[in-house]
């Protein structure tokens, strides 16, 4: 049956790189992609997007709703950042916070922030931006009755009050140091009158924001067309948009996207696999842009009682696994340009993330075998390993484990299924990746896997306490100290093998001038034609 050949796609973001796969279908796909790239290098010139000042981008998933609070896909975040503005702005290079719709802000106490708003900003429909926009939008989306799907972005908000026409007060439910991060990335501000009138469905049908691009046409499931906002406010830290028109088309198949790029039908595609990106380098009309991401990769070890591998309860076994994997070689040969070795279990750019004081486990198979022998496993043992993306990386890890006697059996699953298994205490080793949902604060990464929640397979009370302290402390120095101690303990007790940061490859028209940022946010306003 043809249906059987649908490749599994993780809900979050699909696999970036894939090489050795035993499936015939997968091989054929790879072969076809190679043919596409290799056979067509010589074909004619691309239609230049520069000529009609239109940037054509393809993405594999269509958002279910364009309203930023009612979709959970990356392209939704990309559209949101280009069409809407947030109160604050984080400079992607320096990670410094600046005011966007807010001119300035004051932390009144642990739970209260006051914002002085910018005057003279207009939404795309002409509606004026003021305190009402902020108050209505945030109180609406934070109310569970309104069923926002991005609960993680808004559930920390207690209430927002109007203090004046251009002044608001935001109260969080608990001290929430990550507030600024959310307010600068995902918490978009809607025009109050319009949003009140049409609601999320109307916002989806005819999106209105205040950002550098306006939605001029939207065909749900097919495409969305953006035009430069000629009245974009001059003081915005985003700067003025340069490219006149952007068309985003939703093309689910990666090979098709590649074919579109080669044929000149699309000017920009993202999440291109490393092997395909390498081949694309030979196409004269295209360029490959490599960038870092915020996505960390690690091998989680289940040390809980009743788990499928009691061997992992012995810290010597866990350290043996740490020493068994040659991360440098894997990063160089498989992960590729833009990949970076991790020593601490958080994204290095995140506020509060540090590798200081965290032990580094060098590749040392002899030491690994010695540790295994000391733990009573001179001949190694068999253990299941669960994974959901970057299968070639999992396979490399399996080979290294095999070399010291640990025979890992691969169980390759869909993300949701793997997550359920891990939460049900049914996994031993789990090849995890975590993108922190773009949030550049350590509270969005380490606590998810070590803070005592459902995804925590270590449940170390000392670490849980430290992370909780970090999550609820506003004083930066005290906060950093708590996280640093927790990260060091995670390393010392070897609960997970920190592996690497995933790179991302973009294929773009040669005429396009673009920067790849680690947050994988495509900033159209920042792009121009060469």
């Amino acid at each position: 049956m043809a249906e059987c050949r649908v490749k599994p796609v993780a809900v979050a973001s699909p696999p970036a790189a894939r090489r050795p796969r035993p499936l015939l279908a997968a091989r054929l796909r790879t072969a076809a992609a190679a043919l596409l790239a290799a056979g067509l290098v010589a074909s004619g010139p691309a239609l230049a997007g520069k000529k009609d000042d239109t940037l054509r981008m393809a993405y594999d998933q269509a958002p279910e709703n364009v309203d930023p609070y009612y979709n959970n896909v990356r392209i939704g975040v990309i559209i949101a950042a280009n069409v809407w503005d947030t109160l604050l702005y984080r400079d992607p290079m320096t990670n410094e916070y600046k005011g966007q719709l807010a001119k300035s802000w004051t932390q009144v106490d642990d739970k209260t922030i006051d914002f002085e708003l910018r005057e003279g900003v207009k939404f795309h429909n002409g509606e004026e931006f003021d305190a009402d926009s902020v108050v209505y939008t945030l109180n609406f989306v934070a109310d569970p009755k309104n069923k926002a799907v991005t609960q993680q972005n808004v559930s920390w908000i207690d209430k927002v009050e109007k203090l004046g026409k251009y002044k608001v007060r935001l109260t969080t439910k608990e001290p929430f140091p990550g507030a600024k991060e959310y307010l600068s990335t995902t918490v978009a501000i809607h025009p109050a009158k319009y949003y009140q009138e049409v609601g999320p469905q109307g916002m989806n049908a005819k999106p209105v924001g205040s950002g550098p691009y306006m939605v001029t046409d939207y065909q749900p499931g097919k495409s969305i067309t953006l035009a430069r906002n000629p009245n974009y406010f001059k003081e915005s830290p985003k700067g003025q948009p340069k490219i006149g028109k952007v068309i985003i088309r939703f093309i689910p198949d990666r090979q098709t996207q590649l074919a579109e790029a080669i044929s000149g039908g699309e000017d920009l595609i993202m999440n291109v696999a490393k092997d395909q990106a390498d081949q694309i380098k030979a196409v004269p009309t295209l360029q490959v842009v490599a960038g870092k991401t915020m996505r960390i990769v690690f091998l989680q070890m289940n040390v809980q009682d009743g788990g499928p591998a009691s061997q992992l309860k012995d810290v010597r076994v866990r350290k043996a696994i740490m020493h068994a994997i040659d991360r440098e070689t894997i990063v160089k040969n498989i992960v590729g340009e833009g990949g970076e070795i991790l020593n601490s279990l958080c994204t290095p750019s995140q506020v509060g993330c540090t590798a200081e004081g965290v032990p580094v486990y060098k590749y040392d198979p002899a030491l690994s075998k010695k540790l295994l022998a000391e733990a009573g496993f001179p001949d190694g043992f068999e253990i299941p390993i669960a994974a959901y993306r970057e299968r070639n990386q999992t396979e490399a890890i399996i080979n290294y484990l095999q070399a010291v006697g640990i025979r890992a059996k691969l169980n390759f699953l869909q993300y949701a299924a793997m997550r359920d298994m891990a939460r049900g205490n049914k996994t031993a080793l789990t090849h995890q990746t975590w993108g922190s949902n773009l949030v550049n604060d350590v509270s969005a990464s380490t606590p998810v896997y070590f803070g005592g929640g459902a995804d925590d397979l270590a449940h170390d009370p000392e670490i849980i306490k430290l992370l909780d302290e970090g999550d609820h402390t506003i004083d930066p120095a005290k906060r950093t100290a708590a996280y640093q101690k927790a990260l060091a303990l995670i390393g010392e007790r070897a609960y997970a093998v920190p592996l690497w940061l995933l790179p991302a490859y973009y294929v773009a028209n040669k005429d396009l001038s673009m920067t790849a940022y680690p947050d994988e946010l495509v900033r159209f306003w920042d792009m121009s034609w060469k």
Partner: protein
Amino acid sequence: MLAFTLKRLGLAALVALTVSVLAFLLLHLSGDPAVALAGEGARQADIDMVRKMYGLDRPLAVQYADWLWHMLQGDFGTSVYFKTPAGPLIFSKLQTTLLLGLAALGVALAISIPLGVLAALYKDSLADRLCLAVAVLGQALPNFFFALLLIMLFSLTLRWLPVSGSGTWQHFVMPALALGYYVAPAFMRLIRAGMIEVLGADYIRTARAKGLPATTVVFKHALRNAIVPVVALAAVQLGYLLGGSVVIETIFALDGLGYLAYQSITFKDFPVMQLIVLLLSVLYVLLTLASDIANAWLDPRIRVS
């Protein structure tokens, strides 16, 4: 005849019901819908909130009964992913898929009838072997791979057709070819076998003996009889084409029912997926029924018995 039809329809309803129960169970047992809905970044509390919001915390049987009850009242439910009524959502996509399915069926018949006749006329010759090769290739070549080959040829090398999308008729050429070629072999072999049998029949010998032109004998006398089983197959294959266009729609970015089904499985959008399953099983059953009627019309013997 009426009793027979009613019995068939009752059976069909049971089949559709069973399929929907299975689909419901499979979708719920393959992972937590609330996790899929809340997205990767969600915390446990957020997932619990989503689960409660969408009534996913109720027992499976209750959820299913609730769906069925609303269904019987003509309320097709609301997509938990797109947040719009599932009925209009599905029907808005049906047109693309129907168009693709019919075009693919046309392609399949356009390939298989001439080749099937040719293979039968020149049985065991080189032409027959070549037709066999075409059939084997069509059956063996995964359709997504064939689709990519088509893209390479028509879009990248010749630059005649757009790679993907659904705006113009040109957008449907490659998808229809890819999908049609995949189902053509079954027709081809059926026509070949039917033609060989018919061509050996007495009345064909008589027709030839009367001195009728070869084309009249082959196309008017022989093909008309050999094509009867093809009609039955065509109806069933159309059902398959409608349900089986998932991969092709995905490759060519055609915004049809197949792609919607793929999305609804990925995002555990059960109201949509269940409605699609129901719709397709009903269509399948109806097409099979239609093929019986068409057969009866084409072959008087069936009518009489």
